């Protein structure tokens, strides 16, 4: 606004100086350009109106003038701002249409970065923070068991060794439900999600996912039926053959048709559907999507031979999670204290007859209550740290994309210097032009952000698919909830600020004078320097991504190639449930023997054996033992893992025996034998020869079983914890000598040919022998390992993708900046070539100049990589966080790419025709 030193109206006696000062301040509500154009006139007009009103003594009119001025600031000023934005927007869109390739590259790179970071954030937020959907007041819920524990345990636990109880038994739940008053409602749900083979409404066999829940399940979670009715607490007293299905399942399987009264036939019972859960309801476990819920009282009927509702001392079947809704005014601490009192009283009653140290151990159990608004989760613990690493990685990628865009805009700004200089000379303020340039960047940014949000949906779907390969039944819906939207928007605005502010200011620094020496715009030294800084930054940011990807890739490789102690190819694992099939005692032994013989007849089968725990099934078993000649330091020192295996287990699996022999079929009728692993021999026998020594298992009710050691096997890894960790002591007993122990064995089939046909044939053998015998799973070990290592593989793959994109962006950035810089020096290069400089010299001269910025980038990048590698230390296996080889390779790769990106424009420059170049100059 053009300022005037004296009275602007020139009218004598104008005494409204203070009011003019206030009005001048109000004018700052208007856009700068408008103020510049009309501010003086507006101020003059206001002053005259006010003067005239004062002269006529009209106070009302003076007030009206002020009111109108204030109203203008609130209504007219925003309209003027909108007009400027609208103008800038139209100009920006015209520019984008004029250079569609540039706009496409900019929008796409932003979309990828913003889409990626939004998708990963949404997943991270969902896994970590999202409340249970469709549940009423989730903040009132508490969990009495461990939200991250899945599975079940038969036996006993102690607080000292195992921490707070991960699961409850049904009887313990009943005691808490019936005797406590901290909760308005308490429910129990099966910690595992089961898969059932069913016939729906007399149709074909299909697989559905479901879990057993108590009658108070839906009440506690505060949900109402979408159709029909849900379970009530009365369902805890009688085994009603009913089921509630999920809304998704209802829509997917039944198309939303009337459903109440339809039947679902399970193996051992037919249930009637009584209702549908509300839309979006998934139950108490985040990341799972059950199809149906079954009454807990039906468990012994549907899973015969395994009554988990009743326990016989000292064994407890711990298989339930428990959730309670706190009564108003009751704190979590109060509820925990009362729950523990009831729980401990229950333990006293259950373990009553025991005495001494054993009794103390059995009673040493405790509950820990935690807020349960987010529910339980199978994947939360495992995924959260991986997702955090990915979030940081994709954030770095977005930074690199912004640096690239900033460079592109810097170059474009340089090309528009004449336009900008003209506008400045015609009176446009620098602020006005910066505003326009920022609007152009904002348009690009918002277009990129909007495209990114759409892309986020697909990237999210891809991530969910990848995770579900590693975590069975993992499901999570993408939702653009306010937090995710806000995050996406914030990411977009941050990106725009990062890549637009610098180029906008640089572009307007030229001043009003046009360059007299060149028709084309020239970048200032300042701009060139900024361009080089940005490229160094991109290189620096790329190195941690490369090094991180290298470390994660090596981790995955190490895990995938960990020495299991045996070959993992050509091994089929076929698990049956003999107990559910009705086989007990000697009949079970006979079944296993007959099956082994029949399966061995299948063409392509080299050898066959069985194992109760299987390989990487997630199950585990351990015993208290006495070892001949070994004095344990304490109770914990008497434990060992164990397995029940068939004859020729070690030769079939392919584990060498260091001493002695394998378990044989002939052991069936002889004294009880066992084979121990190396770790067992080292711990319990030290330097002694274990062959012929005895291991005594101390079972329930102090029943003792003694086994003679007949062999020592190399350590083998058959449990997930043993992949990354050490192999502990384990002893293997013969299934033939303990038939009841192998209730649901896994048959291990070594094949000489492809596993596919053998697996199909194996199924047929079982069906022929007993069509009612449940086949729990048929899988190759390789497939199982793929799924176990799935998460490590996903993280490594994503890290490699990010690193590759970062490298590509850095290379493009470097290539662009160098090409531009070299193009500006065509004249000089032409002169050098004309004076006899050979192409080699020109290339080396240009490359030497880029050496500085590459070196700076690598140096800073090495520092960043060093710090970043500490973030992922816990994820690594078999490779140090600062592994010199990985760092060197990453640095070398970056150097190679940088060299290549620099060499191309240098080579092009060396081939210039000096005559053409000098004529142009």
């Amino acid at each position: 606004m053009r300022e005037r030193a004296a009275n602007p109206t020139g009218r004598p006696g104008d005494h409204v100086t203070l009011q003019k000062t206030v009005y001048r301040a109000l004018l700052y509500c208007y856009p700068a350009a408008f103020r510049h154009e009309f501010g003086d006139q507006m101020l003059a007009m206001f002053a005259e109106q006010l003067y005239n009103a004062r002269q006529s003594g009209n106070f009302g009119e003076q007030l009206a003038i002020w009111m109108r001025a204030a109203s203008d600031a609130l209504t007219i000023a925003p309209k003027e701002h909108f007009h400027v934005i609208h103008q800038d927007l139209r100009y920006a869109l015209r520019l984008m249409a004029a250079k569609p390739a540039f706009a496409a590259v900019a929008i796409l790179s932003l979309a990828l970065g913003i889409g990626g970071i939004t998708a990963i954030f949404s997943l991270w937020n969902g896994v970590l923070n999202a409340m249970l959907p469709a549940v009423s007041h989730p903040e009132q819920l508490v969990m009495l068991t461990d939200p991250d524990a899945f599975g079940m345990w038969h036996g006993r636990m102690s607080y000292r060794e195992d921490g707070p109880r991960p699961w409850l038994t049904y009887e313990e739940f009943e005691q808490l439900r019936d005797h406590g008053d901290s909760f308005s409602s308490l429910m129990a749900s099966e910690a595992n999600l089961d898969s059932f083979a069913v016939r729906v409404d007399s149709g074909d066999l299909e697989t559905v996912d479901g879990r057993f829940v108590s009658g108070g399940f839906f009440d506690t979670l505060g949900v109402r039926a979408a159709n029909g009715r849900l379970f009530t607490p009365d369902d805890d007293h009688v085994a009603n053959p009913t089921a509630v299905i999920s809304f998704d399942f209802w829509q997917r399987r039944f198309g939303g048709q009337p459903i109440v009264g339809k039947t679902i036939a399970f193996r051992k019972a037919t249930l009637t559907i009584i209702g549908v859960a509300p839309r979006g309801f998934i139950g108490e476990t985040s990341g799972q999507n059950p199809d149906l819920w079954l009454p807990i009282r039906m468990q012994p009927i549907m899973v015969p031979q395994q009554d988990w509702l009743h326990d016989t001392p000292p064994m407890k079947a711990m298989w339930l999670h428990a959730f309670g809704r706190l009564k108003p005014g009751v704190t979590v601490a109060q509820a925990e204290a009362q729950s523990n009192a009831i729980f401990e009283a229950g333990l006293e009653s259950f373990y009553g007859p025991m005495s001494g140290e054993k009794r103390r151990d059995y009673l040493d159990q405790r509950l820990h209550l935690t807020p349960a608004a987010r529910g339980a989760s199978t994947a939360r613990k495992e995924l959260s740290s991986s997702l955090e690493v990915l979030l940081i990685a994709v954030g770095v990628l977005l930074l690199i994309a912004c640096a690239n865009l900033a460079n592109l805009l810097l170059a474009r700004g340089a090309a528009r210097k004449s336009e900008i200089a003209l506008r400045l000379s015609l009176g446009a303020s620098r602020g006005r032009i910066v505003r326009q340039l920022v609007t152009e960047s904002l348009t690009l940014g918002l277009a990129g952000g909007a495209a990114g949000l759409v892309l986020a949906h697909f990237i999210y779907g891809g991530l969910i698919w990848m995770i579900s390969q590693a975590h069975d039944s993992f499901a999570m819906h993408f939702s653009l909830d306010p937090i995710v939207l806000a995050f996406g928007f914030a990411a977009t605005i941050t990106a725009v600020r990062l890549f637009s502010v610098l180029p906008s200011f640089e572009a307007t620094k030229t001043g009003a004078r046009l360059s007299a020496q060149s028709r084309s715009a020239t970048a200032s030294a300042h701009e060139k320097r900024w361009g080089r800084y940005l490229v160094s930054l991109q290189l620096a940011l790329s190195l941690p991504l490369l090094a991180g990807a290298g470390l994660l890739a090596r981790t995955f490789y190490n895990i995938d190639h960990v020495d299991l102690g045996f070959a993992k190819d050509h091994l089929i694992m076929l698990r049956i449930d003999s107990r559910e099939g009705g086989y007990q005692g000697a009949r079970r032994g006979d079944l296993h023997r007959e099956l082994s013989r029949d399966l061995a007849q299948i063409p392509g089968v080299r050898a066959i054996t069985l194992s109760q725990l299987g390989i990487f099934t997630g199950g585990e078993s351990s015993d208290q033992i006495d070892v001949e000649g070994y004095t344990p330091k304490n109770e914990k020192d008497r434990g060992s893992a164990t397995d029940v295996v068939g004859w020729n287990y070690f030769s079939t699996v392919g584990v060498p025996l260091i001493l002695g022999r394998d378990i044989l079929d002939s052991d069936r009728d002889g004294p009880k034998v066992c084979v121990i692993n190396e770790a067992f021999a080292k711990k319990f026998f030290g330097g002694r020869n274990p062959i012929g020594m005895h291991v005594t298992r101390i079972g329930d009710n102090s029943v003792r079983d003694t086994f003679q050691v007949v062999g020592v096997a190399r350590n083998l890894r058959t449990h997930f914890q043993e992949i990354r960790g050490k192999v502990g002591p384990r002893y293997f007993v013969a299934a033939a000598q303990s038939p009841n122990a192998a209730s649901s064995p896994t048959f291990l089939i070594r094949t000489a040919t492809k596993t596919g046909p053998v697996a199909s044939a194996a199924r047929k053998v079982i069906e022929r022998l007993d069509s009612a015998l449940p086949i729990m799973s048929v899988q190759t070990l390789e497939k199982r390992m793929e799924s176990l290592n799935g998460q490590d593989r996903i993280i490594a793959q994503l890290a490699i993708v990010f690193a590759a994109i970062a490298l590509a962006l850095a290379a493009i950035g470097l290539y662009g900046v160098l090409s531009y810089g070299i193009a500006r020096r065509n004249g000089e290069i032409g002169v050098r070539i004309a004076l006899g400089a050979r192409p080699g010299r020109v290339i080396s001269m240009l490359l030497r100049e880029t050496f500085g910025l590459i070196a700076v980038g690598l140096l800073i990048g090495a520092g960043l990589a060093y710090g970043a590698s500490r973030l992922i230390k816990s994820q690594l296996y078999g490779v140090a966080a600062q592994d010199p080889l990985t760092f060197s390779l990453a640095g070398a790769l970056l150097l190679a790419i940088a060299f290549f990106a620099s060499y191309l424009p240098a080579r092009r420059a060396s081939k210039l025709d000096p005559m053409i170049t000098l004529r142009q100059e």
Partner: protein
Amino acid sequence: MDDQTDSPLPGAVFHILIALADRDRHGYSIMQDVAARTGGKVKLSPGTLYSAIRRMLEQGMVEELSESPDPSSTDERRRYYRITRLGKHAATAEVARLSALVKQARAAGLAPNA
């Protein structure tokens, strides 16, 4: 430039065109003329006036004069505006539109006869 001569004109724009129809004026003069013609019912504030003038300049309905039309004027810093042919056309079209409306209102018995 958009041809907006067939759309209803905003009130302030129409008043400004009328004020400029008989002679060139500066902003304060336009405000005074509008107030006088409407008996004080319409008082254009500086914001409303200059926002409308900005729009009219862009649309070509008025133009700014490079020097004062009144050689005897002492205030050289006032800026004068003149209606253009397009502005006259727009004003005329608005008059015709309003006249047609008044005619329809009269025919419906809503307005007193002229």
